[in-house]
């Protein structure tokens, strides 16, 4: 089959360039046809010429070319499904041909008895059958023999080698019996053509069914790819124009009506609506979108009509990144699969050696006809061994498990993260934005005598406007709500983990915790008790001093997310030690932890000390998961055995995180651990099954049970077992698709 390859052309500025490039390529040997799309600057080359020859030819013609492998996900998926379907039909055809000879022969052997060669007529009949079997081998089993021969030449061996050797041995021996029966003892003059045809047929059937089952393992990624819109309604020159999604440019204005899909990532510039983001985040409640808010490709606009400006298109959209990340993770292998890889590397030659030893043992010590027993046992050993089941055990489960997690809004970076997440013993949760909403509000303002609230809030919001801390933002928001605008401050500096200071006109402003005030010798003695009272109500009290005198204590509270308590209980019920980490003072931390149902907490932790705390728990022998926002907690996330970043739908693929939770709920955390545990269990079942199958099957095939029970496996049964062992692995992996995390 000819290959179609696309190249992106640079430097083609006029239509005449097209002829020049096409002519250069059409003159190349091994190019059947080259066609250029001038609008897209893409040339499609049909033929077998090498990439380097094509690029060289284009360069000689005066242009530049580079290989374009940027098929859209949907196109690639469609092509894969088409190719799989073609291959499935081919295998089924081959299976039908092989079994149409194998089954009648099998029935004959069962009804009539031994297929032996004693007379000249029988020789003639079996010669005809042998030639028909050869035809079957050529038509239905050619891929095994070609693959085996090519591998052999490369000093490697694989499943093809075993099948080719097994069926080849059975056929060759049978032909020797037909052509030269005299060199074989009378009792050993059996033919095994039915075994050859049946094995080829059954293995093709197994492969075909495996393709079908494999298709189901990638359903999650198919669903994600299916979320991508095909067209977008862009507003160009004041008119609505439906354009293919590939043609959407940055800053294009896109109109979306109720019920339509958001085509690319963007920012709402007009209108108001609610958007269903559940397909990406797992969050069932639609999210309100107004001017200035982000919308994400693949989500569905529910109630109103909006216009948004495209901010990320093509492979940069959150959805494209999610698909990419899921695909990469699905293809990665957790450490548990490495042993199977090592075994696979030595497996086939070892099986070949066992087959030879088995034949020798039968020839030396076996009953009569020893030759026939030797041939049957060697063939059966070669056929029953299944390296594929071992090779498939891990990747198939990872494929389904990672996809299943993505459906729940959990993005797992790789197989290693998946495996480690299943073993977590301690989960450290950052407080702000993880357990709590991360959107604190001012609850109390305790003024010092003679102070004016408006003036205090103005100064407080002025100094806090320079800080990105959520508590600072709460003060700024609170002032804004009272129509108090912050003023410009100078000499702003942040004191890590303690507070901020700045100058406003001639005044020195200092805003922070008790520690900071004490360090600067500011008298807060009259307010410590009141502040502790606020802290015991899960509020965070902060001191505000102007020119070294305390002017107010401002308390801010960050409400606990509605489902945090349930999710934390889920983690604890799974035997995971949950620890809360916060920069808050001890009293506030204690109150929040108690509300959230957490007994263990670490308060007053500086941001830079979070990673040390993770290390402390690791040194206690714990396998530590750390959950935070992925930005402030990046070092701690990176230090943990598994770092979980809690996102808000659009924050995908957070670099420092091993696992990204796309919705804000901590249930995502419990889901991630549950799905990783289920996947690891599935992998273990698969590996165990594959190991046991081979460990038990090979000796059985060699005939170890014969001396005790007179049992010897037929090569046909071995072929069926081998064909269905891989299928069993894929089917078991598919069971994971039924996994549902329980939110209780």
């Amino acid at each position, binding site marked *: 089959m000819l290959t179609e390859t696309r190249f992106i052309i640079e430097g083609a500025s006029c239509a005449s360039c097209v002829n020049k490039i096409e002519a250069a390529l059409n003159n190349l040997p091994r190019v059947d046809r080259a066609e250029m799309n001038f609008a897209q600057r893409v040339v499609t080359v049909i033929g077998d010429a090498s990439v*380097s020859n094509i690029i060289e030819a284009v360069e000689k013609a005066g242009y530049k070319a580079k290989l374009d492998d940027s098929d859209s996900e949907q196109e690639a998926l469609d092509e894969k499904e088409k190719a*799989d379907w073609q291959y499935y039909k081919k295998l089924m055809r081959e299976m039908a041909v092989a079994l149409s000879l194998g089954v009648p022969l099998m029935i004959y052997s069962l009804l009539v008895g031994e297929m032996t060669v004693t007379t000249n007529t029988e020789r003639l009949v079996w010669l005809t059958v042998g030639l028909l079997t050869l035809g079957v081998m050529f038509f239905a089993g050619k891929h095994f023999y070609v693959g085996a021969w*090519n591998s052999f030449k490369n000093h490697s061996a694989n499943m093809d080698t075993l099948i080719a050797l097994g069926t080849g041995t059975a056929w060759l021996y049978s032909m020797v019996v037909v052509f030269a029966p005299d060199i074989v003892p009378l009792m050993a003059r059996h033919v095994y053509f039915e075994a050859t045809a049946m094995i080829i047929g059954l293995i093709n059937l197994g492969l075909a069914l495996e393709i079908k089952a494999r298709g189901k393992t990638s359903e999650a990624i198919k669903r994600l790819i299916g979320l991508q819109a095909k067209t977008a309604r862009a507003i160009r020159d004041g008119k609505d124009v439906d354009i293919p999604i590939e043609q959407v440019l940055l800053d294009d204005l896109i109109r979306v009506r109720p019920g339509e899909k958001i085509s690319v990532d963007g920012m709402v510039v007009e209108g108001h609506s609610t958007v269903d983001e559940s397909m990406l985040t797992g969050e069932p409640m639609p999210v309100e979108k107004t001017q200035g808010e982000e919308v994400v490709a693949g989500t569905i606009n529910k109630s109103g009509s909006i216009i948004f400006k495209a901010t990320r298109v093509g492979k940069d959209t959150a959805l494209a990144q999610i698909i990419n990340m899921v695909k990469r993770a699905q293809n990665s292998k957790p450490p548990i699969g490495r042993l199977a890889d090592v075994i696979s590397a030595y497996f086939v030659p070892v099986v070949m050696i066992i087959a030879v030893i088995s034949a020798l043992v039968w020839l030396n010590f076996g009953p009569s006809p020893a030759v026939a027993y030797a041939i049957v046992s060697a063939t059966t050993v070669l056929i029953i061994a299944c390296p594929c089941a071992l090779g498939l055990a891990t990747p198939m489960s990872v494929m389904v498990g990672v996809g299943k997690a993505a459906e729940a809004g959990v993005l797992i970076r790789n197989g290693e993260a998946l495996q480690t997440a299943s073993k977590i013993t301690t989960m450290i949760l950052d407080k702000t934005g993880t357990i709590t909403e991360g959107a604190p509000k001012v609850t109390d303002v305790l003024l010092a005598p003679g102070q004016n609230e408006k003036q205090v809030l103005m100064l407080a919001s002025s100094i806090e406007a320079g800080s990105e801390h959520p508590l600072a933002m709460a003060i700024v928001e609170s002032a804004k709500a009272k129509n108090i605008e912050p003023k410009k401050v100078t000499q702003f500096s942040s004191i890590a983990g303690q507070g901020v200071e700045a100058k406003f006109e001639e005044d020195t402003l200092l805003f922070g915790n008790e520690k900071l005030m004490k360090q600067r010798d500011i008298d807060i003695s009259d307010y410590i008790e009141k502040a502790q009272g606020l802290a015991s109500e899960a509020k965070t009290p902060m001191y505000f001093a102007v020119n070294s005198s305390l002017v107010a204590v401002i308390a801010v509270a960050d409400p606990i997310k509605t489902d945090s308590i349930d999710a934390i209980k889920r983690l604890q019920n799974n035997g995971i030690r949950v620890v809360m980490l916060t920069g808050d003072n001890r009293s506030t931390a204690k109150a929040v932890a108690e509300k959230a149902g957490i007994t263990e907490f670490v308060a007053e932790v500086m941001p830079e000390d979070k990673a040390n705390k993770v290390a402390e728990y690791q040194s206690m022998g714990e396998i530590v998961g750390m959950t935070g926002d992925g930005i402030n907690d990046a070092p701690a996330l990176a230090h943990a055995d598994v770092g979980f970043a809690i996102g808000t739908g659009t924050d995908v693929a957070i670099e420092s995180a091993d696992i990204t939770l796309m919705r804000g709920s901590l249930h995502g955390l419990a889901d991630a651990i549950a799905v990783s545990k289920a996947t690891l269990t599935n992998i273990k079942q698969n590996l165990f099954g594959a190991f046991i199958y081979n460990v038990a099957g090979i000796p059985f095939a060699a005939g170890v049970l014969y001396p005790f029970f007179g049992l010897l496996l037929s090569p046909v049964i071995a072929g069926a077992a081998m064909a269905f062992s891989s299928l069993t692995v894929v089917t078991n992996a598919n069971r994971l698709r039924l996994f549902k995390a329980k939110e209780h």
Partner: protein
Amino acid sequence: MLWINLTGIVLIALIIWWFWLYKEQSIRIAEGSLEILVKDGIYQPSHIKIRANEERQIVFHRADATPCAEMLSIPELDISERLPLNKKTVISLPRLPAGEYAFHCQMQMYKGKITVQ
């Protein structure tokens, strides 16, 4: 029987030699574009040699419909790529220190190696 047993032992020795002990004759360091054909159960060529500390691209051309050929994995480089049928896929290698890097399909039916010198 002696001859049969001897033949069997020789056969075992040949299997060990051919699949495990055989050392390939030295192959040239590849210059320019590298293209590997995935066809009929093998990578062709299955062994390539490149220079250390050079960024290189390898083009994999999958012409084999069997699903085994679909995934390419270079475990040590954490590379795992789907190879579309009858298409060419570019795999970019980072600057690598000297050593051997195996590449194979998911089930290790197809095997190859990159020698970096």
